[in-house]
Each structure stands twice: as C-alpha cells, then as structure tokens.
C-alpha cells in the first residue's frame, strides 16, 4: 500500500479499467454471438442432409456375365433443394465368382468418366491394352475389368462400387461406396 492509498497495479486483482474492458468486450461478444449463431447454423444445413440410399432394380442376374462388364443406365429419384427429379446413374456390372460387382464410372483420380472397351455398337470386347479394360480420357488412368487400378498411373484406388442386393434373381443397386479391400 502506498502512502496515497492507491495500491500498485500488481497487487490489484482486477483494475477498474480491465473490468470495464472485459464487461464491454463480453457484452459485445454476446451480442455478436446472438446474431451470428443462427446465421452460421443456417448455412450449415447441407451437413445434416444425406443422399439417402434407396435400391433400384437394374435387371436380372442372368443379364450379366463373367467375361466383361456391361453398361447399365438407370434412374433414381433425387431431391435437389426444392426440386424433385430423376437423375440418370451409370454402372458397369460384371459377375465375379457368384457375386455381382457394379462399378461406378467415375475415375478415382479426379472424377472423369472412364470408358470401357466396347465396339462401335457398344458391345463389350477384349481390351487392346492387355488386362487394362477401362481407360480414363483425362490423365491416362486405367483399370482392369474388375476396376482394379494400375498404380503406376494417376488413380490410386480401384473404381468405387454400388451397394448390391440380389432378390429372387433381380439385381438392385444402392449407393456408391469406396472399396474397403
């Protein structure tokens, strides 16, 4: 305690000036937060929307074979904001062992459409490039007929696959997933 009764700054827990600064800052922060909180939450709405997976029938097991993938186009219902509509999806479908493998044509490098080896009429044919059956037009990515990537090319994982369900011989496709193998 000094003679004039004023304690040196160190001893005082909280100075008047500091207290006022905190009070003013706190009030201001509270006001700003109460305006911004609903606004920011509002902008985050897309995070709670899922694309939802509904299965769509694309044909019979016997429509597909073990030799080459077959191209299938099918429609799914899609909600896009306030618009309801159909979107066309594409899958390359092949049988492997007893299973159905349905691959997405999106290249796993940067998302171009990969092309299968087909003749002028669109029928699957053996590849002119040995085991590499899918080719990406963008940066030379290539994949086997089971969608396995050539690791010396840009794509670093196999083609993504659709969820597959087989019911009474009918093939149904769900949403697209990365392979876990």
């Amino acid at each position, binding site marked *: 305690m000094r003679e004039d009764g004023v304690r040196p700054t160190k001893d005082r827990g909280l100075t008047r000036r500091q207290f006022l600064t905190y009070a003013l800052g706190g009030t201001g922060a509270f006001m700003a937060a109460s*305006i*911004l909180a*609903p*606004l920011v*939450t*509002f*902008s*985050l*709405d897309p995070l*709670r929307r899922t694309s939802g997976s509904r299965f769509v029938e694309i044909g019979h097991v016997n429509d597909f074979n073990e030799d080459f993938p077959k191209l299938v186009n099918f429609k799914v219902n899609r909600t896009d*904001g*306030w*618009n309801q509509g159909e979107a066309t999806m594409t899958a390359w479908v092949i049988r492997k062992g007893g299973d159905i493998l349905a691959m997405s044509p999106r290249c796993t490098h940067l998302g171009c459409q990969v092309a299968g080896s087909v003749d002028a009429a669109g029928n699957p044919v053996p590849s002119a490039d040995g085991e590499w059956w899918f080719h990406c037009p963008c940066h030379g990515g290539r994949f086997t007929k089971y969608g396995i990537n050539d690791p010396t090319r840009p794509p670093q994982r196999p083609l993504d696959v659709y969820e597959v369900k087989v019911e009474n011989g009918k093939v149904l496709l769900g949403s697209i997933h990365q392979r876990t193998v």
Partner: protein
Amino acid sequence: MFAKMYDWIDERLNITPIWRDIADYEVPAHVNPANKMSAFVYCFGGLTFLIIVTQILSGMFLALYYVPDIVNAYKSVDYITNEVLLGNIVRGMHFWGASLVIIMMFLHMLRVFFTGSYKAPRELNWVVGVLIFLVVMAFGFTGYLLPWDQKAYWATAVGTNIAGSVPIIGPYIRTLLVGGDTLGALTLTRFFAIHVFFLPAFLLVLLAAHFYMIRKQGISGPL
C-alpha cells in the same frame, strides 16, 4: 500470441492511433444515458445502424438459398422457411428487422428534429439523412417482391402503378421498374439486383458520409 501478432502489425503500420481515435473519443455528458436516462434518444442512430448491420448479415445468409426466378423464388423461400435448419429464424430476422430499421430510423429522425440538430452547421447531414431515408424505403419496396407470393406480387403491382401515376414521366418510370409492361421475370430480377447490389452500395456510401460529418462536426450541444 494475439498480442504478439498485433504488435508485429502495429510496428509496421502503426494502427493503434486509428482505433484509439475512436475508443478514446469522449461521449459528451448530455448524450450519455448513464448521466440522464432521457439521453437514450441519442442512441437511436446507433441502434438503426446495428439493425442495418443485422439486415446485411441475414440477407447475405438468405442468399445462400434464395433464387430470383419466377419458377423458383417462391419454392426457394418456402424451402428456407420450412426445410432449412433455423430457416424460419433467419428469414424472421430479415423480415422483422426490415420494419425495425424503419421504426428506429424514424425515431432517430424525430430525435434530430426535436433537438433542432438539423440546424446550421448540420443541414448537409440532414440532407444526407433524407437520402438515407429514401434508400431504406427502396430496400423495403424491392425486398417485398422477392418471396414472389400473392402479397408480394400485388403489392408491387400497386406500387409500380403509383410510380406510373407521376405526371408525364410516370409511364417511363413504371416501365423501367417493371422491366416491361407486365410484372414478371424481369421485374423480379431487377428488384433482386436493386435490393442486393445497388441499394447496399448507395447506403454504405451515404452512411460513411453521415458518420464522417458527425465526427467532424461533433454531436449537437445540449438543449
């Protein structure tokens, strides 16, 4: 860490005097409600500004979902109101705020009028204030059309016809507002552009002039 970052910038740009100039500005005793409660009337200008800032913010966020097109405008507003997380709150902020701005602005104007603060040397700031007033009314008029519902449509039909009743140039004004002779797609895009691009630009310039003059001339003295 922030203190160090601040010091680093301050050493180079000497920014302390810029905010000190505002932070150390003394509120004159006669406008400080802490001294005399009735001085709260001097807060109306600042409150108007606070709500303007909220309007700008909520408007920016509404634009994340709104589409200014005759097919989609109503649907997108409906989507905001009923689907988007807190959509009705954010739309409500902008909706109620629109009226509150006008109420606050009016109270502010009454304060300036009854304290005689519009007199010399502050006439020019009163003139700028009147321009601000007109811009704010234009915000209300153009914003009202954007939901593209029945109320919006007919209010704008009436409003543009009133504009059309001005002698001689009225019909031209109406055509330019409507973007043709029937209210439709072009009216909506025009009103949208005016509401979100043109008017905010005018308003910010006018407010800068308004605040600059207040600072330069100081607040008017006690009655």
